[in-house]
């Protein structure tokens, strides 16, 4: 499939899924432009509301966070009625992260979101660190992920992007990226949190600076093997240098997640540094 048919690759700076609250919580830190033009991936939306997992959901470890939040979200209905219209009105380019327990759920989500005004694109969560625990469709094999992407693609307009968010597993990432791209993914997001465990053995995902070099290696491998597949780096991006490392490795953009929990202004600062658009306004020109 030609890239032109799959929608524009967003970026270069996006808010990663699950780290932007409902979007409203970012507004105080977004500067005078607010969320206008911000590429924002929502937290994963499921068909039915989910209250999320028990506490502690997020625990600090050296260099990062282990989390098992359990995808709390109000369900598609409520999201479409309240959160999405707010984000659209605020000017954000909304990429809805979708998660489902079955292929049918992914297809339903894609179909209904294709009709919702203001959805810029979708991100398909096909690399959650603990799918079984989160009650999600298991995508152990790349072809499972690809069939989910294909199911979403069938229901979503070809001119809008569908991103596939993969697990940053260097031994499988090239295969996964190839399969998802062939199934119609506009770009692959590399990647999700790394499968990890809390001290008591409970499964979770590790995120933050600790996984930056793991995610970077995955981007490097994908770019080397599949130079035509657009990648978006995600993992430990917290400043201009860490973002540039992904861009220099061939990524078309980066997503910022855990860094927002540490400093909610991170995306605003990175956009100011990396966005090629918007020349300085006259007041700011010395």
């Amino acid at each position, binding site marked *: 499939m030609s890239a032109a048919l799959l929608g524009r690759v967003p970026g270069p700076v996006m808010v990663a899924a699950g780290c932007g609250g409902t979007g409203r919580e970012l507004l105080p830190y977004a500067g005078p432009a607010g969320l206008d033009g911000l590429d924002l991936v929502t937290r994963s939306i499921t068909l039915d509301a989910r*209250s999320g997992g028990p506490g502690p959901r997020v625990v600090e470890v050296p260099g990062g966070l282990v989390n098992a939040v359990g995808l709390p979200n109000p369900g598609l209905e409520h999201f479409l009625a309240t959160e999405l219209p707010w984000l659209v009105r605020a000017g954000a380019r909304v990429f809805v992260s979708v998660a489902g327990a079955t292929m049918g759920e992914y297809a339903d989500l894609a179909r209904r979101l294709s009709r919702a005004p203001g959805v810029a694109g979708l991100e398909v969560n096909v690399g959650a660190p603990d799918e079984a625990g989160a009650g999600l469709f298991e995508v152990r094999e790349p072809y499972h992920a690809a069939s989910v992407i294909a199911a979403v693609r069938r229901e979503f307009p070809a001119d809008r992007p569908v991103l596939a968010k993969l697990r940053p597993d260097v031994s499988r990432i090239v295969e996964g990226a190839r399969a998802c791209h062939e199934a119609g993914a506009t770009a692959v997001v590399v990647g999700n949190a790394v499968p990890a465990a809390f001290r008591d053995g409970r499964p979770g995902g590790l995120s933050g600076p600790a996984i930056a070099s793991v995610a970077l290696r995955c981007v490097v491998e994908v770019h080397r093997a599949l130079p035509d597949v657009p990648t978006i780096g995600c993992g430990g991006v917290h400043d201009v240098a860490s973002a540039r490392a992904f861009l220099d490795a061939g990524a078309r953009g980066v997503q910022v997640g855990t860094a927002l*929990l*540490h400093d909610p*202004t991170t995306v605003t600062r990175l956009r100011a540094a990396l966005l090629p658009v918007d020349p300085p306004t006259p007041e700011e020109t010395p």
Partner: protein
Amino acid sequence: MPEERGTPAGPVHVEGEVVATKRVGAYRHLTLSAPGIPERFRAGGFVAVTVAGHVARRALWIHRVRASSAFGPTLDVVVEVRGSGTAWLAAQPVGTRIAVTGPLGRPFALPKDAVSCLLVGEGYAAAPLFPLAERLRERGCAVSLVVSAPDEAHLLSALEARRSARSVTVLTADGSVGQRGGVADHVDDLVRRSDADVVYAAGPAAVLRSAAGAAERAGAWSQVAVECPTPCGTGLCHGCPLPVVGEDGVDRVVRACTEGPVVRGDRVRWDALIPPRDPA
């Protein structure tokens, strides 16, 4: 509660600086210059601060604000050392720069009329009750304050409290000062004696539960400041689940940092609330 006109709203993220540090009993009181936060502060609000070398932030109750000082607007926080992050904070000398976000969370709701209020706090987490007492007194409320702790060293600011409260009751588990016992032992009696219309509580979950229960038995309203570990403090991570019953009677899990930390005591599903753990 309506927004006060002309008051800037919403949190800000600023580079603060330690301008004073003082050990008081078992705690470390830090004064931070934090432009923008004191003027937005309402009692019950908190700040999230960055700790060097740590990804998660530390949430600290605001104990006092000064709109102006030699250092500009400042705020006071009370730190109890419970792990490496709070140990770092407590060790910082004057001049250390610290990123501060706040004021965060939903503050205490203030009564419209000059009613009788009982304020119940335990340990360092009693901090938000002191600015609350001042605001209530300004509104003409009769304020009774209960300060509780395991021992004298962990009693927060009981002496200062006498300025804004009509009566102050001190409870220590070991009986070293004031009455012996904990909040659960005395709260029903205290609610009755103060003839409280509203009970405000701040402290560990068990203390909040006792206070909320006593309020309900006495037919009073309660407002509790729930302390959960809040990895970000800003509502972004959904990492601080607080089980509540919504106004529609439906069970929900909300974010302690955003829909809380102050909620009505009768709305908390106490059995489902995980006891707060020590921060790392």
